[in-house]
């Protein structure tokens, strides 16, 4: 393997990520350099260190040192596996958008680069992209380590965290190879059913990988199998954490063994990924014939919803985008993934005295609400950016900003509603809910979809990322972070009246009136927030359409 070639390729992939976005022109141009990332990481490390140290000293002054010490130990033990999971999760959301546009022009097709060199370079650049997680995690761990005399354990944590992040990045490369395979299955095949089959396969691959790398689920599963968390020894992805734990317990032999096994695992992942990439890489774009029927234009149900032909056309196009582009499948996997990640540990922790059916309405409610909220928010946030370079089609056509916003919001609502209704049916059936609860849940789900679609779109249109890099993200980082915070805050506001209804009872107030008031308050809030977000959407769309991003 030519390490020099792998290093050069790592630089190219990193530059392609840093320089592709068009948002950093001018004063922020310095952020396009890898050295800027290193500086930001260094800053984050110092800040995390100072905060952790300060908190640790307050902690030890107010409560028992032993409690603080066990917390510090827990942080260091969990950090490698947690960082591995974070890289996988971020990668699933932002790194797997490998568009067909790049398949035939990718360097690997025409330059003398081996699959192993490519995998190494791509994984290293992914690890570098998310180095901020490592910086914050290790900075905070150092603050705790110094306070509780765990500095040697911290050094092992550093080593295992780096290897853990690499394993996560290799896992992502393996996932990329599997998605290629799922796409290539279709090559030269025809029919819409094949597209649906591919979508289902991709969603299953995404969800399975994410669940495999989810430490909470894995430890719960092992706990339920082996009766205790010690069962983690049978779970290779937990070895980095076990190395740290054994070192802290002064079991140097065990620590060395787990550290050695971790390196072996990393090597195995690397070789497996290289093999997978070699086997599953498909340099030709997929050519699919979807129908043989004669062309017969007809007005669909969208026109009955009050949409004009242009708006309906955009809605139809966005549906096709979501169901046919492999880089979009990850967004469809989000609700399933979130619900599974939150529900599985909860279901597995049930014992015979506390069976799964007793998870209760709130146990089902929050994971499902969270899944629907995140789905509506994410698909809305990316709805402008996913147009990519083809956005000129919208710019050059006689579309008003209002039409574009109406189309995008409608597409998102229509897409999210069936998921919400499926979840609602699930909660109603599994949670044995009363009529009142069932109605409240339905209202919450529908209003959340509405409000998150507007809020997500407002951010998506303000911070779109049309650049088609090897790893397109569709929304700029600022937009994504703001959107997530705002989306959660808005969801909190919509849920607040129901929360008040559940938590505070007033004997002088009729329960039905109280419930109706809570529903009304939530609906009014939804209307207000949606109206504000809609105005923001139209205003930002006007600005966006004023000039094609060059």
């Amino acid at each position, binding site marked *: 393997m030519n390490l020099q070639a792998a290093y050069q390729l790592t630089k190219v992939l990193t530059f392609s990520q840093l320089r592709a976005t068009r948002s950093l*022109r*001018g004063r922020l141009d310095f952020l396009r350099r890898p050295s800027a990332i290193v500086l930001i990481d260094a800053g984050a490390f110092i800040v995390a260190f100072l905060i952790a140290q300060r908190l640790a000293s307050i902690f030890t002054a107010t409560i028992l040192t032993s409690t603080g010490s066990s917390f510090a130990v827990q942080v260091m033990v969990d950090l490698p596996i947690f960082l591995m999971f974070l890289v996988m999760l971020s990668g699933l959301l932002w790194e797997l958008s490998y*568009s*067909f*546009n790049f398949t035939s022009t990718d360097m690997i097709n025409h330059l003398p680069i081996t699959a192993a060199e490519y995998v190494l370079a791509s994984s290293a650049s992914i690890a570098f992209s998310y180095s901020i997680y490592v910086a914050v995690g290790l900075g905070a761990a150092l603050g705790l380590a110094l306070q509780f005399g765990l500095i040697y354990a911290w050094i092992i944590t550093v080593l295992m965290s780096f290897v853990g992040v690499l394993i996560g990045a290799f896992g992502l490369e393996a996932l990329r190879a599997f998605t290629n395979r799922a796409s290539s299955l279709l090559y030269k095949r025809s029919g819409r059913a094949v597209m649906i089959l591919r979508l289902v396969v991709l969603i299953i691959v995404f969800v399975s990988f994410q669940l495999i790398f989810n430490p909470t689920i894995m430890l719960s599963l092992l706990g339920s199998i082996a009766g205790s968390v010690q069962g983690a020894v049978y779970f290779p992805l937990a070895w980095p954490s076990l190395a740290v734990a054994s070192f802290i317990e002064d079991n140097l032999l065990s620590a060395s063994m787990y550290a050695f096994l971790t390196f072996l695992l990393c090597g195995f992942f690397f070789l497996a990924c290289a093999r997978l990439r070699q086997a599953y890489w498909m340099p030709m*774009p*997929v*050519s*699919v*014939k*979807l*129908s*043989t*029927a004669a*062309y*017969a*234009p*007809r*007005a669909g149900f969208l026109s009955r919803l009050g949409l*004009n*032909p*242009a708006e*309906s*056309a*955009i809605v*139809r*196009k966005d549906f*096709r*985008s979501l169901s*046919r*582009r492999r880089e979009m499948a990850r967004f469809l996997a989000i609700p399933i993934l979130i619900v599974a990640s939150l529900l599985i540990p909860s279901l597995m922790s049930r014992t015979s005295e506390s069976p799964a059916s007793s998870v209760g309405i709130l146990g089902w409610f929050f994971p499902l609400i969270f899944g629907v909220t995140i789905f509506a928010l994410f698909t809305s946030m990316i709805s402008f950016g996913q147009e*990519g*370079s*083809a956005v*000129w*089609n*919208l*710019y*050059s*056509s*006689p*579309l*008003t900003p209002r039409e574009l916003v109406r189309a995008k919001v409608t597409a998102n609502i229509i897409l999210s509603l069936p998921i919400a209704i499926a979840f609602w049916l699930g909660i109603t059936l599994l949670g044995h809910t009363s009529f009142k609860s069932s109605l409240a849940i339905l209202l919450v789900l529908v209003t959340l979809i509405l409000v998150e679609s507007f809020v997500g779109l407002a951010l998506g249109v303000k911070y779109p990322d049309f650049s088609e890099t090897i790893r397109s993200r569709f929304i700029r980082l600022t937009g994504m972070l703001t959107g997530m915070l705002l989306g959660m805050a808005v969801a909190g506001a919509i849920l607040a009246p129901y929360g008040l209804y559940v938590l505070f009872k007033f004997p002088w107030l009729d329960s039905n009136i109280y419930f109706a008031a809570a529903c009304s308050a939530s609906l009014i809030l939804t209307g207000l927030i949606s109206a504000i977000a809609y105005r923001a959407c139209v205003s930002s769309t006007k600005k966006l*359409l*004023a*000039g*094609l991003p*060059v």
Partner: protein
Amino acid sequence: MVVMNSSHAVEIESVVKRFGDTRAVYEVSLNVDHGEIFGLLGPNGSGKSTLMKLMLGLLKPDDGSITVDGFDVQRNPIDVRRIVGYVPESPRLYEFLTCLEYLDFVADLYRLTAQTKRERITEFLKAFELEGRENEMLSGYSQGMRQKAAIIAALLHKPKLLILDEPLNGLDPRSAKILKDLIHKLADEGVSIVFSTHVLEIAEAICTRVAIMHEGQVLAEGSVAELRSKAGMPGSTLEELFLKLTGTGDVREIVEALLR
């Protein structure tokens, strides 16, 4: 025949466009008449594509004004886009759509009726030999086939002005001939056409007038005969004129150096 709302199809007045420190278009003033085939010529990076995007309102000028059929591009971009058909250089299409779905999508954006859509899409698919491949996803199309799809999309709504940026890129000889004949026919019906090309023979053969651009400025404008006479090069080809005006005439030394 096309109904005209102003004396010129396109009026460009002292337009300036900068990208940071780069002067893409500088003090350009041009008029394109109704039914005229206007060629924009110039070396790579001379500002042709930028000027075309400015005409459509895809970019905002830093200075100057542009009107299309009497509509100010900045004030009435929607009215302008309704009457313009545009084919960018290397058009990026929605790769996940079939050609038919893409054309149907564009036709809906221009609000064509179902009857008109069916008729025009079917006619154009046949003319550009995409019949039989129309239900394939665009991701599997060659560059030439994509170019054809983009050209059809630009023509579907019978525009008054066609802006074609290197429209012959990747087209096979038959399709190129169809497009050239179509351009002539549309011009006869009063449609104005602005197009850029590097193939000077084509410009010479089909353009009523040409403008030669270099470093964002228009160096010369007029019919090829007028340009010859202005440059004092009677009997010269458009290529010779172009090379003289853009200062890129003597390339022998470069070629020799490359061969060393």
